[in-house]
């Protein structure tokens, strides 16, 4: 038979666990202009592949990777700015696939950011004049969530239209993918 004190402790624990469900994700809709400007300061390697992301992102707690609102905004931009026309739903068409783990410029967020901001040879256009730096980071976070290099608990909103690929947080893990394509 359980004592009344043990019962009370149990009740309190369950109440605390339930209360944890009340926490809501925060939508940061506005960046202070100095922060927005700081987001452009990526220190890339000379060949434009990987580098150090701006410190501001780490200070903010990596929102573009782990915040569902930011990922959803990235997903919206992916459709609005017609990334599908070359990369399809991530499966690749005239542009390379994004849902595998083998990216031409590597899995580093800075590489993805620079690819979108400055463009890359063989057809990837520059979006510097069409998107703000914050939007490019949102898109970067979404593209990372498409890939199989890492996973997070956060995921963007689901598709309303027909599904052509698994949901972003259900991409197969790296271990189940075939070996990287060899250079030709």
């Amino acid at each position, binding site marked *: 038979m359980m004592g009344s004190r043990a019962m009370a402790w149990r009740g309190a624990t369950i109440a605390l666990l339930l209360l944890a469900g009340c926490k809501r994700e925060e939508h940061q809709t*506005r*960046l202070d202009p100095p922060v*927005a400007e700081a987001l452009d300061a990526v220190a890339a390697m000379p060949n434009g592949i990987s580098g150090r992301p701006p410190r501001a992102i780490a200070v903010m707690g990596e929102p573009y990777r782990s915040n569902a609102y930011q990922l959803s905004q990235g997903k919206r931009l992916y459709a609005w700015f017609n990334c599908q026309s070359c990369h399809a739903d991530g499966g690749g068409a005239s542009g390379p696939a994004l849902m595998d783990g083998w990216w031409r410029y590597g899995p580093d967020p800075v590489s993805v950011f620079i690819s979108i901001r400055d463009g890359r040879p063989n057809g990837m256009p520059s979006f510097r004049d069409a998107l703000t730096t914050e939007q490019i980071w949102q898109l970067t976070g979404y593209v990372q969530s498409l890939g199989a290099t890492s996973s997070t608990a956060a995921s963007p909103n689901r598709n309303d239209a027909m599904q052509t690929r698994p949901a972003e947080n259900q991409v197969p893990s790296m271990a189940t993918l075939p070996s990287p394509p060899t250079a030709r």
Partner: protein
Amino acid sequence: MRRALPVLIALLLAGCGGWQSANDPGGPVARDLQGLFWLFTITCGLVWIAVMGVLAAALLRRPPGTKEERERADRRSVQVVGGAVAGTVLIVAGLTLASYFATRSIASDNPHELVIRLRGYQWWWEVTYADERPDRVIRTANEIHIPVGRPVRFELGSVDVIHSFWVPNLSGKQDMIPGRNNSIVLTADRPGSWRGQCAEFCGLQHAHMALHVVAEPEEDFERWRSAQLAEASAPATEEEEAGKRVLEGKACAACHTVRGTEAAGTLGPDLTHVAGRRYLAAGMLPTTRGAFAAWIADPQSVKPGNNMPMVPLSADELQSVSAYLARLR
């Protein structure tokens, strides 16, 4: 207290009029719905009073004492219950019939109707005037002009989530659902301008998703329509010229169209005649040069969560682009 009561009633009644009220109908559909509202309110009010009266009588009456009295009471209760059942059946059938006749006009079909395609976005309205000739199709946003006396068919759709089209002075609500086509027909029978509102919760700025309907005589409407078909006004000053270059060169052009310039984006509202509309950002701000500047400088403080980004501009660029937009009547 006795003096405060008339003031209170006057204040409450003030909510019944105005440019966003189902109690001030501007067309036949809304008038039918208003009639329906009063019919239901009065009928249900009378039924409520009758039920309360019977309840009070039942509570207050003396219990029957003798056997004879009890039998008389039983007979009467059969009559009362039978009468109440018959009354209920009659009232429900009558209200159903009235409702059918009042809402029949919403689905009517008319070959002379004007067709307007309305698409909901988070959180604004894209308005397209259909025409057989593609060069006569008009695309605008948030402000709908309609001719008085002509039925208008709204073809409703949505781009992102479920919205709902509701201009209380002209008709009832109709949902706008992604991937589905709904439609609603309404007519304004007097000139006026009314406010409408998204009537289905659609996210952070649902409350700030307003639209305006301007009903005007046929010739005024045709004049407005041909003015909308024209390309954007050319910049008149050096400042406006600089503003046009900002609009074409910065991120503005990626989402907005200004016909007659290089800006041809289709993600945000068409700005070709933006200064001719009364309000900016779906009813947020009255259209002035200052409002353009405020909106462009910090859209996320004016309407947090909307999809217009804060584009970094210098003070001069902001000034000139606001001057140019204020020119686009």
